[in-house]
């Protein structure tokens, strides 16, 4: 019979420092050389990773109480508004919130120099952050105003909680119109002048476990330089999208909600982003280990860029209208080559998702597991998969 392994067996090997761990890039050659069975016999864990802009990210913070006490109503961190609609001195700072007073797109295209993503990066870097809060005052929380400085070490709690990260595949963006457009896919030149894509392809976590057979609630991950966990499917998790014969979705499909202690993270792996004409965000580094429970998992992790298809969407017409039409399909091998041939044109490509950083995360995670510092988390519940019947809905305006 084929190879069978349990999480317990793999973790026992990790504890003994004997686990065989390789990255999702390295496994491709190993499978080519030894075949699926040979590779599955030898390798216990394959590490995957991605480093890119993930707008649905943010952090929960608890400042500790003031004297006299205050129920913070409106809150700003370095003049970036944070959410005050939870308990007295708790807040959520979201990655895409823009600093108050920013001209936004009034002087188009706006620069969006500082926002929530930058606050999170500065916090993680240990910098002082200006905290401003106002309140309406109650009998138990009389204080109405606060202006002071905080740093991450002053906080009782700081944890990253990202409701949607690590998109399984993504749109490939192009612009058919006669003017330059400024999007979350970067600056897209007129008349199909460039193509931007945003996935780590063969290194990307959910492309290596296309049916979520090992990545689920409780999976331990590399998050922002520290350790985190998958806590739910991400928002917009849409597992029933069109898939190729290898099971890999041809566009955005599955997503992850992740959590982790911000105090153990690093500004190298949480980077504030400013997209010209679009807004602020946060680039997040995520690494997910995939246990080789059997040959089937080995087959999934051996996927390579040639076999992963991205769908080209026109961000000049169909996308903003909410009627995205797939105008071409291209493989990630073509996209990574720097030029693609579609619609009778040769178009230069840019990645947006950092492949070198993803490779580095996959390597760091491999080393942590090899050193016995990182055991695998066995999911307590798997994510809804292609048989779930989940439908990705739009808003019905009424």
């Amino acid at each position, binding site marked *: 019979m084929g190879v069978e392994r349990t999480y317990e067996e793999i973790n026992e090997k990790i504890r003994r420092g004997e686990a065989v761990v390789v990255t999702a890039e390295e496994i491709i050659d190993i499978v080519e050389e030894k075949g699926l069975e040979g590779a599955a016999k030898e390798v216990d864990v394959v590490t995957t990773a991605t480093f890119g802009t993930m707008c649905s990210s943010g952090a929960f913070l608890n400042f500790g109480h003031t004297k006299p006490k205050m129920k913070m109503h409106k809150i700003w961190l370095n003049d970036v508004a944070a959410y005050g609609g939870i308990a007295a001195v708790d807040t959520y700072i979201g990655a895409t919130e823009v600093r108050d007073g920013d001209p936004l797109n009034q002087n188009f295209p706006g620069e969006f120099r500082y926002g929530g993503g930058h606050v999170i990066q500065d916090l993680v870097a240990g910098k002082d952050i200006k905290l401003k809060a106002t309140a309406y005052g109650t009998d138990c929380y009389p204080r109405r105003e606060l202006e002071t400085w905080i740093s991450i070490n002053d906080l009782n709690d700081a944890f990253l909680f990202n409701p949607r990260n690590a998109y399984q595949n993504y749109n490939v963006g192009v612009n058919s119109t006669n003017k330059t457009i400024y999007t979350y896919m970067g600056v897209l030149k007129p008349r199909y002048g460039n193509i931007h894509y945003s996935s780590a392809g063969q290194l990307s976590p959910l492309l290596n476990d296309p049916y979520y057979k090992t990545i689920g609630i409780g999976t331990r991950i590399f998050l922002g330089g520290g350790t985190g966990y998958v806590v739910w499917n991400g928002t917009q998790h849409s597992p029933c999208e069109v898939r190729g014969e290898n099971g890999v979705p041809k566009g955005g499909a599955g997503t992850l909600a992740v959590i982790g202690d911000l105090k153990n993270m690093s500004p190298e792996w949480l980077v504030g982003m*400013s*997209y010209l004409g679009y807004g602020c965000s946060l680039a997040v580094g995520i690494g997910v280990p995939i246990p080789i429970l059997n040959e089937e998992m080995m087959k999934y992790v051996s996927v390579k860029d040639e076999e992963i298809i991205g769908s080209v969407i026109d961000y000049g017409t169909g996308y903003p209208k909410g009627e995205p039409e797939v105008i071409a399909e291209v493989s990630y091998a073509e996209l*990574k080559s720097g030029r693609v041939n579609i619609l009778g044109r040769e178009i230069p490509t840019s990645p947006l998702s950092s492949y*070198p950083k993803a490779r580095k995360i996959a390597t760091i995670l491999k080393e942590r597991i090899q050193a016995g510092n990182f055991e695998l988390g066995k999911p307590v519940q798997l994510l809804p998969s292609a048989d779930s019947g989940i439908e990705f809905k739009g808003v019905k305006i009424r």
Partner: protein
Amino acid sequence: MEICKRFVLYFPSTLIEKPIIYQLIKEYNLIFNILKASINPHQEGLMVLELSGEKDDFEAGVEYLKGLGVKFQPLSQDIIWDESKCIHCGACTTLCPTGALYIERPSMEVHFDGARCVVCEACVKACPVRAMVVKFTA
């Protein structure tokens, strides 16, 4: 021996109306290619220029510019790539018209070749982490 170099020239407001480039052609036999030119609200001019000509003519032309009070510096120093900030996302690479910013394969790392940069500044605001910096000091 022929010399070809690219410079960033800064003209004080007093020189804006003088036909300096014309003199470079007529008196010093220099060939030029204007890569970029602008005049700011204080009437100071900035010009990115590729100059070529015989060695003697070239040096005499440069002396002429210096004598007028034109400040200049080699072009490659004008846009700085802050490698420590760069996350190698590549968003700049299809916007760079000369290929000065490019992705090396198979590493997929972004590199910057200052010698090919024409200081169009397309990368500066398009870089999501602001790793491309314009340096104005001459």
